[in-house]
């Protein structure tokens, strides 16, 4: 009886620690004094659209700071409203701009690809935000955009904003694995 008891407590402790450690970086605050560029070297630009099955460049090291980070997603959510992304993309359903809550990604659904899309801008109306937003803010926005299609872990996203209720809460949005869409340009 006692060995089983010891084994089970050991298992419970290890499981609790693993669950808890996952919580650690979810709550990290990045109010850094120095701009993001100087703290973590930028990866090479993932901006090459790679036709066919060639593998994309490795993920930008800065992604670890933003993906699944609750504070980044929350700041991104406020920036999404303040910078009037709603004007074209509405609350992820799309309008003049493409929808952001589906799994179709013309320019890549990885966080660094979305950040590059925001920074560079895209043909057919996506403005370039380089110079208008800092790198940190662009990556916050990219983290929030990924949460519209349920990609980050459910404990990092916020269930609703304090505004009008816009569709299913992100905590209940199903995970839509991004696919590189080659749909014709509208």
């Amino acid at each position: 009886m006692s060995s089983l008891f010891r084994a089970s407590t050991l298992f419970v402790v290890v499981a609790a620690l693993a669950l808890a450690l996952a919580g650690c970086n979810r709550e990290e605050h990045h109010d850094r004094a120095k701009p993001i560029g100087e703290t973590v070297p930028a990866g090479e630009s993932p901006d090459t659209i790679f036709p066919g099955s060639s593998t994309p460049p490795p993920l930008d090291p800065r992604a670890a700071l933003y993906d699944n980070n609750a504070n980044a997603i929350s700041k991104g959510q406020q920036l999404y409203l303040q910078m009037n992304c709603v004007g074209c993309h509405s609350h992820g359903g799309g309008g003049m701009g493409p929808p952001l809550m589906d799994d179709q990604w013309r320019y890549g659904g990885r966080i660094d690809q979305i950040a590059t899309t925001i920074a560079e801008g895209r043909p057919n109306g996506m403005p370039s935000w380089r110079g208008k937003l800092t790198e940190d803010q662009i990556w916050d926005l990219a983290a929030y955009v990924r949460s519209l299609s349920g990609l980050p872990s459910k404990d990092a996203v916020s269930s609703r904003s304090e505004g009008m209720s816009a569709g299913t809460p992100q905590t209940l949005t199903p995970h839509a694995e991004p696919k590189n869409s080659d749909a014709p340009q509208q």
Partner: protein
Amino acid sequence: MTDIRAGTFEGAAGRPAGAERERERVEAENRRLAEERKKIVRDGPKLKGAKLAARLETAWRRPPGIIGWLATVDHKEIGRRYIITALAFLALGGVLALLMRIQLARPDSALIGAERYNQLFTMHGSTMMFLFAVPVMEGVAVYIIPLMLGARSTAFPRLNAFSYFMYLFGGLMLWVAFALNVGPDVGWFAYTPLSGPEFTPGKRADVWAQMITFTEVSALAAAVVLVCTILKTRAPGMTLARMPLFAWAMLVQAVMIIFAMPAVALCSSMLISDRTIGTNFYNAAEHGDALLWQHLFWFFGHPEVYIIFIPATGFVSVLCETFCRRPVFAHAVVVLALISTGILAFGLWVHHMFATGLPRVGYSFYTSASMSVSIPTGLQIFCWLATIWDGRPRFQVPMLYVVGFIITFVIGGLTGVIVAAVPLDLQLHDTYFVVAHFHYVLIGGAVFPLLGILTYWYPKITGRMMSETLGKIGFWLVFLGFQLAFFPMHWSGLLGMPRRVYTYPAGLGLEVPNLLSTIGAFVVALAVGLFVINAMVSLYRGAIAGPNPWGAASLEWATSSPPPVYNFEHVPVVESNTPLWDLDGELPVVTGLRVDQKEMLLTTVVAATPDLREPVPEPSLWPFISAVAVGIVFIASIFSPWAIAVGIIPCAIALTAWFWPKELKRHPEPVIS
């Protein structure tokens, strides 16, 4: 009248043969059990003294080792655990207070950052209110009330064990989360929309709200245990009029918990559902309202502070009675004052919301209601003062704490009357003036009597006296340290220092009062440390205390120190308000309870005439396992709502096993195994 129910039968004609045989079998079994019942050994003139004590000991003791430790249902063991765990959380909360005071000692100090400081004051508030104040009062009551009422155990002892484990798991969850940087930082009141899904990302506010669920389930369970114990298990002859004032205080407190805690349970569950599945209770843009949270929270919040204060009035009544060598003056007035305080406390909550712009006419009602609640407390204070004046006070350490209580608490009560007026509260609300007010009524009003009562009942719990000299030094340190720490806060509040600020600019005149408060805080910390040292040292080096070292009057002093597992060899009979003082040498007792199985006496509610012999549950692991199962479901439900749907099954299994009898055969007399 035999207690075995022979099955009653409808008309014989329509009965099928099967039922006929069933009837004979049950009849035979009844006869057999009636014979067995006659052979049960019971206490009485023929079986008393050491022989009885040995037999009762074997029936009532729990299995040894870790399994026994987890399975205990002895109210004394659970009470001790409650008190020790609550004092541990007091120390943790106190350390947080010292960190806050170090940060606030100097203006514009960058020692502790904003986010860290917000976590500190949230954890300080939540720990002190939910993990220290209410549980320590429950712990003292769970230990002392059965002894004071002449009962062998509390009602529902397994529910009592479950309540302690839920409290322990709630406290552990909050502090482990705080250590893993997931601690709440939205204040112990967690106003929405700051604690809502948009402005507190991550799981910080969910951890806080789930800690509320844990501690509220624990407090409600303990409250039901206390109400049933006080109403049903009093010694024969202890009518309601003869019940000690401490028992009255715990009865009023338990009923208040039963009506107040569901409010915070509801609003914290609504907050968690807002944060996890996106309901819109507090979302102003979707027909919700941020003030719905404040109304529900403070409907619980204000009774909560009386839930902490009323047991302390019970403590003061006990100490005044013993140390002034006479019953408390005007017993009926104190009882009525307790009851009216309990009722009035539910009508005041809007005085926490004077600045939220509700209609001014409504505010005037709450001003007068808030002022009127100080009348019953004022009468209680008069009765204590009359007891001191008319008795022969002996100023040993517990009585010093009563004097310290009166001097400190009355200042807090009067500043309470000041902030009850709307024009004054608009200036003083959410400033350090209010911080001073509630520390005066909570530390002065509850912690001082608590330190006094722990010194008073320490010999009963451990069998040894606490050191008188260390006690006196400790008292003067905590009393003077407290004034030095919290009186200047009235001044910094009037100079315009708001609450919950991690720093303040220089040049506003706040430097001197904040520095004094920091010094005072360290003196109080020293004093509490001294009290703990005194308690530890006296465990081994304290003078041996007999059953009644203070010459007190209530029943807990009629048994040995520390009391045996079964409390009383024979259940005592009470004939007056101060039983031990009115005896003529011998303790009147009733006999006839079983000796081979755990059994206690139930009496009627008002007149306390003997009514039933109730089997006392055996120790069992199931309350602990149920607490673990319910705890895991609570914690998992922070991360996904499906945890509740899936988690009901293990909880149902654990709770059924807790209720299910070990052997499914009939006993001569019922046994809860």
